[in-house]
């Protein structure tokens, strides 16, 4: 008697196989939507990049490097290092970091590399020209030239701190790509990809609803299965992302770049884990809400 009920309540083998296939497709599309969303955020979320660029740890590292450069130059050119350090406030650093983020955002939106941010350093030049010890130490009217050299060295260090990439190589690479493909439209299409995949997900959910033929228990089990499957894969993806150790690789190339990548890695991991928890919760909700209906259906 019980077997009869189960047979009547469960879809035929072909329908079940179709449901499994559609759910598998839904897993792939959902995973693509989530990963695409994360990648898109990594490329074009200005606030995320600003948070990384103006993180206290990053700013401290940049300040320490700048202080070293200023101290070395102060020894060489005999100026008051403290006075020059005062001109290079944290606000200047934050503003330069934000300009570097704007450079990146411009590249991510238009596919064209603008000029990298430069700091004019007028305040430092003025401070040096008011520094009596510095003026006294320069012989034969070299004060202006040496002040310009100091400003250039500090400005160069500052630019490298906020923009630790080889500009010429990047520009060449972007130009090379730009000659072959329309980078602007490719980036625009990329931005639409998660939305398109999201629409595909909705269509597949609709197909599952149709194939389940009004059996809420079956529909919820397969929907929950697809969401749970995407969650399992995303959890594995997050684990793999941590195992790759991108920050270690970046750290080998440049310590401060490694630091920025580590912060970015931490943010992506937290976001990934929150998404995994949400997917697991949604899957459990589907499984458990289907259970009540299954019970009702059997009694109907």
């Amino acid at each position: 008697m019980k077997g009869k009920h189960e047979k009547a309540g469960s879809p035929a083998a072909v329908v079940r196989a179709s449901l499994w296939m559609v759910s598998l497709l839904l897993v792939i599309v959902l995973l693509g939507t989530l990963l695409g969303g994360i990648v898109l955020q990594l490329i074009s979320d200005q606030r995320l990049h600003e948070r990384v660029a103006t993180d206290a740890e990053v700013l401290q590292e940049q300040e320490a490097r700048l202080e070293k450069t200023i101290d070395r130059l102060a020894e060489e050119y005999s100026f008051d290092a403290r006075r020059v350090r005062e001109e290079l406030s944290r606000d200047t650093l934050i503003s330069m970091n934000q300009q570097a983020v704007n450079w990146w955002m411009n590249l991510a939106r238009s596919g064209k590399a603008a000029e990298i941010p430069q700091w004019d350093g007028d305040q430092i030049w003025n401070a040096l020209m008011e520094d009596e010890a510095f003026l006294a130490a320069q012989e034969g009217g070299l004060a202006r030239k040496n002040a310009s050299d100091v400003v250039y060295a500090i400005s160069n260090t500052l630019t490298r701190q906020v923009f630790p990439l080889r500009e010429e190589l990047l520009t060449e690479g972007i130009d090379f790509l730009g000659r072959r493909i329309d980078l602007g439209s490719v980036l625009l299409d990329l931005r639409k990809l998660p939305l398109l995949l999201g629409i595909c997900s909705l269509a597949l959910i609709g197909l599952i609803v149709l194939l389940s033929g009004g059996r809420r228990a079956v529909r919820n089990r397969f929907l929950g299965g697809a969401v749970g499957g995407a969650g399992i894969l995303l959890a594995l993806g997050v684990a793999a992302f941590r195992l790759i150790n991108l920050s270690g690789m970046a750290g080998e190339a440049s310590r401060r770049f490694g630091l920025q990548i580590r912060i970015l890695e931490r943010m992506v991991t937290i976001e990934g884990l929150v998404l995994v928890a949400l997917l697991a919760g949604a899957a459990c909700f589907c499984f458990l809400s289907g259970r009540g209906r299954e019970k009702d259906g059997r009694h109907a």
Partner: protein
Amino acid sequence: MNTERGQHSLGRGWLLALSLALPVMLLLGFAVLRWGKLFLNLIHVLMKLVVIA
């Protein structure tokens, strides 16, 4: 009784989720084993090229 049924539904559900994730996992696992090292080396070289120490 209710808890038992709930656990049973969850168990069945997660088993289905695992069966759906497994083919993709195998496919991605194969891709990672086949091209993962090459991809990582490429990222490594690119970083060393583009990033200023």
